[in-house]
Structure formats: structure tokens, C-alpha cells
């Protein structure tokens, strides 16, 4: 257990270092922009994977919390009453409450019906954003920019500072999710995914545990929304549309749901794909659609999962070959 924590810390430190060194080596702002996007959507996908990959709850409505993060944060900042740290904490708290209310209804439903009702709630929240024009700006989104007043000597109006801030927040959230992933709570979730009856037998309150992870996943998604709102200096109803949830699902599938970091890899891949496809062709849908088909029908699992499995298989065949060889030698 201890060595696992140490390894996580080491990996985390390397990741932070890498993310901070990259923009120094390649000082184009485009790279920073790209990475901020990946981090914002990566948090959405990672948090969704706590439900999909870890607990087996396929939510079609996760972007609702992404949007709630962006809007709550944007509105708090525009009100001019609080600073960025307070606004972020309040946003995460507020989204947790929202997720608690929605989750309390949703987690009671099983399988595909859970997916449907999360989708219904997302459409409901999306239509509230569209109709409550006086608060949210309706279809035009929160306009006029989101102010970034300096706090504790940190001024997020500077592009590099904003980037570093995003890296720190991102890694912090990843660390929290990593703890859940490998904690006893995480193993209870896996058991619920694989065999809910057994989990119930062993004394786990399935509904309560599911609700717990639903709230946590919602809160983490809201942080992704905050980062995006900070970066684009606005919040838009599209953040909470079902296509955004669909993209997050695609990131998970692209990267892989069983490897902890899989969804982030998926986010990087999808964003890269998106970036280059948009540059080279106007037939974005055709290319993206074809790529999805090739991956889903060809690999039948996420790219990262596929590679991990492939490495495993190779190691096994090698080990088998080695043991055969050593047996022969012994004989």
C-alpha cells in the first residue's frame, strides 16, 4: 500500500513537472491553450469515469455539472462580491448540492434507465439555462467576460499564471480522484459494478455509496467547468448540452475506462484529432465518424486499455516461453 502511494506521488510530481516544463520548451501560446482545454475536458471525462468505469453507472447527463460549474462560477465572479478561491469553493459546494438532489432520484434506477433519467435531468437543466434569460443570458451565454481579480498576489490575467493555476487545480483534482480510485471505497464501488447483490450482502448500502460517488463525480466535473469558464471568459448553454456529455463518453472510450488515467489520454487524443481535422478539412464529421468506427469496431476498447492489455499479453507469452525454456533446461 505504502509503495503505491509513493509511486502515485512520484508519478504526480513528474506530471506536474512535465506540464510546467512543456510551455517553457515550446513557448507558443497555442500549446498552453490546448493543454488548458485538455485539462478542463479531461476533468469532465475523468470524473465521469468514476461513474462509468469504476461503478458501472453509465450517466448520459454528466455535462449538467460541468455547466453548473461554469455558470455558478461565472455568476459569482460577475457579481463582484467574492474572490476566485471563494467562488471556486462555493461553486464546488453548490454543484455538490445539485448533484445530491439529482443523484438521490437517479441512483435508484438501474442500468439503461439510470442513463435515461440522467439524460432527462441534463435536458431539463439545459432548458432552464436557455429560458432563465435574466440570470444566465439564455442562448447567448454569460456575456461581458468573467473578471479575474488578483488574489494572494496571483494575477490570472497573465496567460502563463493562468496556465500554472490550471495545472495545479487539475493535478489536485486528479490526486483526489486517484485516492478514491484506490481506496477501500473504490473497491466497494468496483464490487457494486461487478456484483451488486454480493455488495449488498456484505453490508454495503448500495444506494448511499452510489449517491456518494455521484456527488463526488459531479463536484469534480464542476471544477472542469470552472477552468473552462476562466479560460474562455464566459459560460454557454452548450456546456450543458447532451453533445458535451457525448464527447466526455467518447473520451473515456477512446482512452480506456479501466486505466485510471485513460480518460485524460482520451481527452488528449480527441482534442488533437479535433484540432487537426478542423484544420485540414471542412468535413469534420466524416473523418471523426470514421475514426470512431475504426476504434470501436477494430479495437473494441479504449486505446490505452488496448495497449495495457497488449503489453500484458506480451509479458504473459514471454513469461510462458521463459518458463517453458527453464523447464526444458531443468529437464
Amino acid at each position, binding site marked *: 500500500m505504502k509503495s503505491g502511494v509513493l509511486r502515485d506521488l512520484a508519478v504526480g510530481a513528474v506530471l506536474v513537472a512535465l506540464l510546467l516544463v512543456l510551455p517553457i520548451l515550446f513557448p507558443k501560446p497555442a500549446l498552453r491553450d490546448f493543454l488548458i482545454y485538455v485539462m478542463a475536458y479531461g476533468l469532465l471525462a475523468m470524473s465521469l469515469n468514476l461513474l*462509468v468505469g469504476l461503478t458501472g453507472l*453509465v450517466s448520459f447527463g454528466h455535462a449538467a455539472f460541468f455547466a453548473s460549474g461554469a455558470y455558478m462560477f461565472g455568476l459569482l465572479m460577475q457579481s463582484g462580491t467574492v474572490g476566485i478561491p471563494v467562488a471556486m469553493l462555493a461553486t464546488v459546494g453548490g454543484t455538490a448540492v445539485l448533484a445530491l438532489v439529482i443523484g438521490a*432520484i437517479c441512483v*435508484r*434506477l*438501474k442500468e*439503461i*434507465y439510470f*442513463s*435515461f*433519467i440522467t439524460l*432527462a*435531468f441534463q*435536458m*431539463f437543466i439545459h*432548458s432552464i439555462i436557455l*429560458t432563465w434569460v435574466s440570470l444566465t443570458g439564455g442562448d447567448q451565454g454569460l456575456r461581458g467576460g468573467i473578471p479575474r481579480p488578483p488574489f494572494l498576489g496571483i494575477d490570472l490575467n497573465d496567460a502563463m499564471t493562468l496556465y500554472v493555476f490550471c495545472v495545479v487545480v487539475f493535478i489536485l483534482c486528479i490526486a483526489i480522484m486517484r485516492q478514491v480510485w484506490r481506496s477501500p471505497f473504490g473497491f466497494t464501488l468496483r464490487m457494486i459494478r461487478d456484483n451488486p447483490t454480493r455488495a449488498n450482502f456484505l453490508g454495503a448500502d448500495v444506494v448511499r455509496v452510489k449517491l456518494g460517488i455521484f456527488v463526488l463525480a459531479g463536484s469534480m466535473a464542476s471544477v472542469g467547468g470552472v477552468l473552462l469558464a476562466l479560460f474562455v471568459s464566459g459560460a454557454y448553454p452548450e456546456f450543458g448540452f447532451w453533445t458535451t456529455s*457525448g464527447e466526455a*463518453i*467518447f473520451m*473515456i*472510450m477512446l482512452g480506456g475506462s479501466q486505466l485510471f488515467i485513460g480518460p485524460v489520454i482520451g481527452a488528449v487524443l480527441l482534442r488533437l484529432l479535433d484540432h487537426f481535422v478542423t484544420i485540414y478539412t471542412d*468535413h*469534420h*464529421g*466524416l473523418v*471523426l*465518424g*470514421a475514426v*470512431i*468506427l475504426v476504434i*470501436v*469496431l477494430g479495437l*473494441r476498447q479504449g486505446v490505452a486499455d488496448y495497449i495495457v492489455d497488449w503489453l500484458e499479453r506480451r509479458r504473459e507469452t514471454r513469461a510462458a516461453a521463459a518458463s517453458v525454456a527453464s523447464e526444458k533446461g531443468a529437464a
Partner: protein
Amino acid sequence: MNLEALASCLSTSACAVTQVSTALIIGMLLFMVASGLSLIFGVLGVINFAHGAFYMVGAYFAYAAYQATESFAVAFLAGALGVGLIGILFERFIMSRVYGKDVLMQLLVCYAAILIFDDLVKIIAGPEYKMMGMPEAFALPPLEFGGGFVPAYYVFMILASLAIGIGLWLAIEKTRLGKIVRALAINPPMVSALGINTTMLYAGVFGVGSLLAGIAGALAAPTRTLTPGMGLSILIESFIVTVIGGMGSIVGALIAALLIGFTRAFGAIGFPLFVDGLMFAMMALVLILKPSGLLGREPAR
């Protein structure tokens, strides 16, 4: 909220007739799309999220055929059969590879199909608005019933959808093939053990489901604007219909489609701002109280 207007509308036959016909016009077309979605789910246990794209393709096929021949009958057949064929191909080459997999896999291939079809339509037909126009045979003044008016084409559309719906129901409930299909929904290995080619049957059912989307597209083409991406809004509505009516139930789809039709037609008079909210609320309520829908059973497999 204007219940007075609603009451006064219901008390005059002109208003009542017109609004009831409006409900039927909205409801029956929705039923055509939703029944296909529901049929596919009932038998194959997959949700065809590409159904809206099929509806769009049906409309474009009908449009192209009508441009070429000036015949609505040909346009109708082109929309229906063309999409039926695409459905079979889609099932055979793509969808059948993700049966029994994660629902996410199915969602993704359908998403890919939507992206590809939308782009193909944009490339081939262009992004401009297209309108097929009213066929000569229906270019009549609206028909009068008890002071209310209903356009001739809509009368045809309602009756045609109803006839197709009844035909579908009879085929499933009263024929031998229908019995096999119902058995297939419950116990595929048993059907297969009886020496029936289930692969063909799956493809056939998917084809019929798609055909229904194609029919809806063809029926919509004379009155609705054709654009890439036009399948999205009808996908969402027919999805609500299928969830409320019960995944896999044709009769449930009809009831739910009419429920939505009446909500919209009379909601426009009595409570225009709450129509959308009411539709989502109905869906959420059904899911909470009876997740399998009004007339649905637990999904196969």
C-alpha cells in the same frame, strides 16, 4: 397559464377540431419515428441513436426521387425502401458487431453514424435549405370538419401513419413471423435452436425499424425544411416518446406520441411556456414511477 382560453377553445367545435387535428399531425409523425426506435429496442435490445439520421436520409431520398420523377408515390417508396436498405446494411456491418457489448459502444457507433450521415448529406445535397413542395394531388384547399380546417395532405398523413401502425401491430401480434420475432425478443437461443436464421431476422427487424424512420422522413418532406442535422430534434422527441410509452411497445409508442401531440397542441393555447418542461417532467415521472414505461416490459437479454 391561460386555462380560460383553453376552456373556450374546447367549447367551440372549430377550435377543438383544429387543435385535435394538430395533435394528430404532430403525434402521428412522431409515432412513425418512435415505433421504429421502439421495435428495434424491443427485439434487439439496442437503442438506435442514429434513428434521427435515418429520418433525415429518408426525407432527402424522397426529395431526390420527387425532383427526378415528380411522383409522390415514387418519392415515398424511395424514402421508405432506401432507408430500410441502409438500416439492414448498418445492422449487418456495424451494429451487429456491438451486440451484447457495453451500451456505450452502441452509443458511439450511432454517434459516428450521425456524424457521417450529416456530413454526407451536406456534401452531396449542400447545406442550403431544401423544400420538396406539395404534390399536385394534395394542392387542395383545407378540408372543413365542423367549422375546423385540416389540410388535405395532413389528413392523408394521419391516415397513412395510422394504417402503417395497425399493419405493423397486426404483423407482430397475428402472424407466424410476428410470433417468431416476439420469441426472438425473449429467448434468442431457443429461436435459433428451432432452426430459424436469427441473423437474418435481426437484420430484417432492424431494416423494418429503419424503414419506419424512412417513411416518417418521406411523409415529412413535403411540409418540413430539409437541412443537414434535421434529425436531431425528432430524435430527442421520439426518444421521450419511447421512454414514456415503454421501450419495445408499439401501442405504448402510439399512446405516448399522441400524449405529446395533445400536450403541444393544447399547450399552445393554454400554457405555451410550460410545454417543454411538461414533456421532460412526464418523462422523469414515468422513469421514477415505472422505469420500463407505460406499456413496456423489462428489456430482453
